Structures are given as structure tokens and as C-alpha cells.
């Protein structure tokens, strides 16, 4: 009895560890299930920041837009020391200028791009605080002159084009050439509800003008990776345009794939569900899509093909929890979360489980299905509910020619498309091996029927 009691207590203690970062995942039926942690909180860092809004990793250093203190912080790779602080900039004519609530930062090719929100301008400077170029409110026919210019986030592509998200613009992000000329808008969200469009056919123009206009939601944040711009939108009504992958023509590549990002609404109860409010997105070096939901504090990681890998993080007062997560950045195997409420940086580092999954997923997405077989089996030892592993196993077995196993795992992964492929091969081999027997059976049955019919006639 005593032994049993101790065992029982052990089970309770190990089964429900006190963890701020409750990690979970979704199975193929979209039920939230507890899962192994892919990332764990490594440490939490304070640098005397005040409502920081953006963090950028240039490959060597971290740049943080320390918005409340009107400055840009440069930190070293290990986030140990402040290397440099930018708060004053010098124009070519010698005039000095200061930042006012800078909310966006980007570094590319020896240039620092700063969205100086309070001064409604974009500053492009070199590393010695000398301003190369200043972009102010564009004078253009496409740009409504009644609207102020509120640059919030900024990024630059390979050819030097500058993309700026302005707080009051709903027609996408603003695009500037490398010379600072305004060239147009890029990647606007879709507007319109179908029901309203139908109703518009029956309503007079006069009535239509009185009704509230149907305006798309503005882009909230973006990131660039391999010529593709990923945008995220804070929209509580629709889940369609939350994450978009835009090609250089501004077309959303995800649009026809019927994808879902963020938390699923439970089928059983409405309580606890908050529609996602994604505040920042980041693409890591191997193409994984990371974004943070500022409403729930959950960090989501998807792979290249938009399959869910990990969910972690939480809104909480404890160390490791967030208050107002404002930006996410990845560098190497770590994820960095900037919190504008707690004024700190939370560093998440990859766990052993996370490393295994990433290895397997990288191989899987490069087409080396058969090589991932043992990795997936190992992953399932860590977490038997990991749906992606079943999917990967099904593919691996399919490549190895073990169709029966492939069918089994495809069924466990809930992937009927994959099951179909495996079944087709399985059936082909089955027919090849047993064609003689099947033919004999058919002959025998038809013979019996024929004889019976003859017997009836005579």
C-alpha cells in the first residue's frame, strides 16, 4: 500500500510539472493536446529598455528599437553587452537630430534603417551615425496627402527597395526605391464580406454612401526571407489573411491552400478561446515560420510547408512569461521575444526534442524521406502524440516500400491523401502476387453459377 502511494505521488509530480511555458500541440482532429517542449526558456535579460518595439538580428549583432528611450541599442551575439547606443544622428550638412519613438529597425549592407515614428520619417544611416538619406511623407498622386506618415516597421530587400508599414495605411505596405522615391503600395489585405457584396446589388448608391466603408485591415508586421515577404495581420474576425507569403509581384502564395494559423477554436466550448492577434513574424534560417500571438502570448512555429511544429510561451507575470510581446527574432537555434510590457528579452533555446524534430523536418522537407525514418521513431519515443512524426513515418515507409506500415502511420496521422498513395502501391503488389489465386476463384465461382443455371433449365 505504501509503495503504491509513493508511486502514485511520483506519477502526479512528474505528470504535472509546474511550468510557466505550458507546451501543447494540435492533433489532426484539431484537439489541443499536451506535448513535449521544443524550446525552453534559457534566460531573461534586461537592458534598461522602455517599451521596446522591434528587434533585429543582422547576423552578428542584435539591434533593438528602444522606443520609450528614443534610441537604438546594439547588443552582441550572446546578448551580454551593449556594444553601442544610437540616439543622435548627424546630417551631411552637420546638423544634429534625435530620434523620437523609433518603432522599427532593419540593418542591411552597412546601413541602418530606422522607422522614426514620432518624427514621421525614415532615417537611413551608416554605422557612424551619419545620415545617408531621410525619407519623409511621399508627395505622390497615389498617396492621400491628408494622411500623415507614421512609419512603424521597416525592411529592405536584396536590391535595396525599402518597405515601410505605416500605421494608418490599409492598402498594404509602402514601397520605396533605393533612392528613396515612393513607388507604390505592396501586398494589401483583402477586404469584403461576401454577404455584403451580394447586398450591394440591391442597395441604392445613396444608401451605400451612408454605410460604413468596407476597409481591409492594415498589415501589422512583416519579415523577408529569400525574396518572399511574409506579412501578419491582426484581425479578430477573419483567419484567412493572418499570415501571408508574398512574392515579388505581391501575390499571396498561401492564399489557395486553405491554411490555418494560430489556435483552433475548441468544438466543445467557447471559453478560453481568443482570436489570434499576431504582433510579429519571423522566418528562421532554415525557413521555419515563427510568430507570436500577443493576445495569448503563444509562440507558434510552423515549418516551410506550414505544418505546425511547436507552440510555447504564455502571458504570465512569472519569469519566462510575457506581458505585451511586441517582437520576435530568431538567431541560430534560439528564439528571442521582446516584451514591451516587461521591458525585457526572453531567450528560448532549442531542447533535445526540438533539435531532433528540426533535423527530421529539414531532411523531410528536402525530400530525404527514407533517411528520416529512425529520427521519427526516436521523436515518437519523446512524444507519442506528435502528429508530424506519424506523417513523416508514413512517407519514410512509403519510400522504403513498406506499404503496409505506411498505411498504418498515414491513418494515425489522419492523412487520407497519403494513405491513398500507400494503399495504391499495396494493392498493386497484392494483385501481382495473388493474381493467379484470384483468377482461379473467379473461374470456379462463374463455373458453379453456370452449372446451376444449366441445371435449372433442364
Amino acid at each position: 500500500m505504501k509503495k503504491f502511494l509513493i508511486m502514485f505521488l511520483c506519477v502526479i509530480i512528474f505528470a504535472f510539472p509546474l511550468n510557466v511555458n505550458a507546451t501543447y500541440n494540435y492533433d489532426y482532429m484539431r484537439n489541443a493536446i499536451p506535448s513535449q517542449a521544443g524550446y525552453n526558456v534559457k534566460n531573461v535579460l534586461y537592458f534598461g529598455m522602455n517599451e521596446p518595439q522591434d528587434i533585429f538580428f543582422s547576423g552578428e549583432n542584435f539591434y533593438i528599437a528602444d522606443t520609450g528611450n528614443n534610441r537604438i541599442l546594439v547588443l552582441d551575439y550572446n546578448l551580454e553587452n551593449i556594444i553601442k547606443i544610437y540616439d543622435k544622428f548627424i546630417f551631411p550638412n552637420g546638423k544634429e537630430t534625435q530620434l523620437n519613438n523609433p518603432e522599427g529597425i532593419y540593418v542591411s549592407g552597412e546601413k541602418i534603417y530606422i522607422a522614426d515614428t514620432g518624427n514621421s520619417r525614415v532615417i537611413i544611416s551608416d554605422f557612424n551615425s551619419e545620415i545617408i538619406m531621410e525619407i519623409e511623407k511621399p508627395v505622390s498622386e497615389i498617396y492621400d496627402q491628408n494622411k500623415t506618415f507614421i512609419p512603424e516597421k521597416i525592411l529592405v530587400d536584396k536590391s535595396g527597395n525599402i518597405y515601410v508599414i505605416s500605421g494608418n495605411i490599409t492598402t498594404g505596405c509602402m514601397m520605396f526605391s533605393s533612392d528613396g522615391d515612393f513607388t507604390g503600395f505592396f501586398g494589401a489585405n483583402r477586404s469584403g464580406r461576401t454577404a455584403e457584396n451580394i447586398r450591394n446589388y440591391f442597395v441604392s448608391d445613396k444608401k451605400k454612401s451612408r454605410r460604413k466603408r468596407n476597409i481591409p485591415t492594415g498589415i501589422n508586421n512583416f519579415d523577408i526571407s529569400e525574396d518572399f515577404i511574409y506579412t501578419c495581420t491582426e484581425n479578430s474576425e477573419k483567419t484567412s489573411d493572418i499570415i501571408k507569403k508574398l512574392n515579388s509581384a505581391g501575390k499571396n502564395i498561401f492564399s489557395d491552400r486553405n491554411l490555418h494559423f494560430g489556435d483552433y477554436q475548441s468544438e466543445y466550448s467557447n471559453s478560453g478561446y481568443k482570436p489570434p492577434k499576431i504582433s510579429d513574424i519571423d522566418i528562421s534560417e532554415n525557413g521555419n515560420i515563427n510568430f507570436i500571438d500577443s493576445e495569448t502570448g503563444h509562440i507558434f512555429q510552423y515549418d516551410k510547408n506550414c505544418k505546425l511544429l511547436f507552440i510555447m510561451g504564455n502571458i504570465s507575470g512569472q519569469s519566462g512569461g510575457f506581458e505585451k510581446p511586441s517582437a520576435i527574432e530568431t538567431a541560430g537555434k534560439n528564439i528571442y521575444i521582446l516584451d514591451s510590457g516587461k521591458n525585457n528579452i526572453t531567450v528560448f533555446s532549442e531542447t533535445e526534442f526540438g533539435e531532433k524534430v528540426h533535423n527530421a523536418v529539414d531532411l523531410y522537407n528536402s525530400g530525404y524521406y527514407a533517411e528520416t525514418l529512425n529520427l521519427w521513431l526516436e521523436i515518437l519515443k519523446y512524444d507519442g502524440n506528435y502528429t508530424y512524426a506519424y506523417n513523416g513515418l508514413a512517407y519514410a515507409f512509403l519510400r522504403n516500400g513498406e506499404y503496409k506500415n505506411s498505411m498504418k502511420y498515414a491513418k494515425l496521422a489522419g492523412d487520407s491523401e497519403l494513405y491513398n498513395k500507400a494503399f495504391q502501391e499495396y494493392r498493386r503488389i497484392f494483385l501481382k502476387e495473388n493474381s493467379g489465386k484470384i483468377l482461379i476463384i473467379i473461374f470456379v465461382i462463374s463455373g458453379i453459377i453456370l452449372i446451376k443455371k444449366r441445371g435449372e433449365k433442364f
Partner: protein
Amino acid sequence: MKNFTQFQWLKYTVTNIPDGFDDMYWKKSGSLKISFIILIMFFFGIIAKDRLYGFQFSADYERTFNIIPYIMKSIILFVAWTVGNWSVCTLLDGEGTIKNIFIYSAYAICPYVIQIYINLIFSYILVRDEYIFMQLIEITGTVWSVILMFSAVKAVHQYTLKKTFTAIILTLIMMLIMFIILILFMLLIQQILIFISEIFTEIIYRLRA
């Protein structure tokens, strides 16, 4: 034809489309027992169609199993058809009794029910590329059943072609009206139940206070 068993009658009416039901009408045959069996098979078939098909054809497994929609889709629908048809056709000088309408309609949906079970077997043998064969079977079964239903209504009430059309259209309208009234009635009952329970709790509170 005289010495047909009830099962042979079923086979005869289903396979002889233009006048199978007419012959059965004049011989005053048709079994209630077989009709019930067909109806129950129809009910299980509707469930199997959603739940038991081979995994390569079930794209989306639902998480919860609720039997009410399946009852609605099969039994209630069929009963509504029977009652609707009877109520319309008594006014249109139809000769069928409600029992006969039930039997004839059940015989008529037989190909549709058989189609579901054939497809159920095929769904374990075929792959997605060959889905067209299953579709072919489904369409054949459905069209066959529709034609049979038409001739069943025609035979059971001894109607002309034109009158059968009107009767069927009116029956469909009747079914719609029946469902609307049913929903209204259920909503009303709900309201009354809420009202009663509220009064009850109010009295309980007063008594305690």
C-alpha cells in the same frame, strides 16, 4: 407472377421499371416487413456512407458522433415523404392508403440503398483516381430510385403522368411545410418549458425567503 413470394415481388418491381408497380398494385401485394428492413438498411447505409468508407475516401473525420442528423437524413425524411404524399394525394383523388405508400416508396428507394453498400465495398478496393466508378454507381442508383419513386407514386394512386408530376411537387412543398411547422412547434415547446421552469424557480425562491 401469381405465385411470387414477397421477395420476388421486390425484385420484380425494382427491375421492371415502367409497369412493375402497376402489376403489384393489381395483385395487391407488397410486404410491410420488407419495407421496414429496407428503411433500416437505408438508415445504416447513410451512417456507413459518412463513417465506414475506406480511409482513402474519408477526407475529414468528424470528432463527435451525433446520431440525430443521420436519423433526420434517413428515417424522418422518409416518413415525412410518406405522410406528405398521403396528405396531398387524399385530396387529389389518390387511391393509395398510407400503408401502401409506405411500402411502394420503400421498394422504390431500394436501388439507392443497394448502391450505398456496393460503394462501401468498393471504397476499400479502389483508390482516389478510380473514384469515378463509385460516382457512376451512385448516379445510377440515384436515378434508378428517382424513376422508381415516380412510377411508384403513379401506380399506388393510379394517376396519369401529368397528375403524378403535380402530386410529387406538391408533396415536396408539403414536406417543407411540415418541417417548418415542426421547427416552430419545437421552439414554442422550448419557450413554454423555459417559462415553466422560471416560474418554478421563482416560487421556490419565494418559499425559501
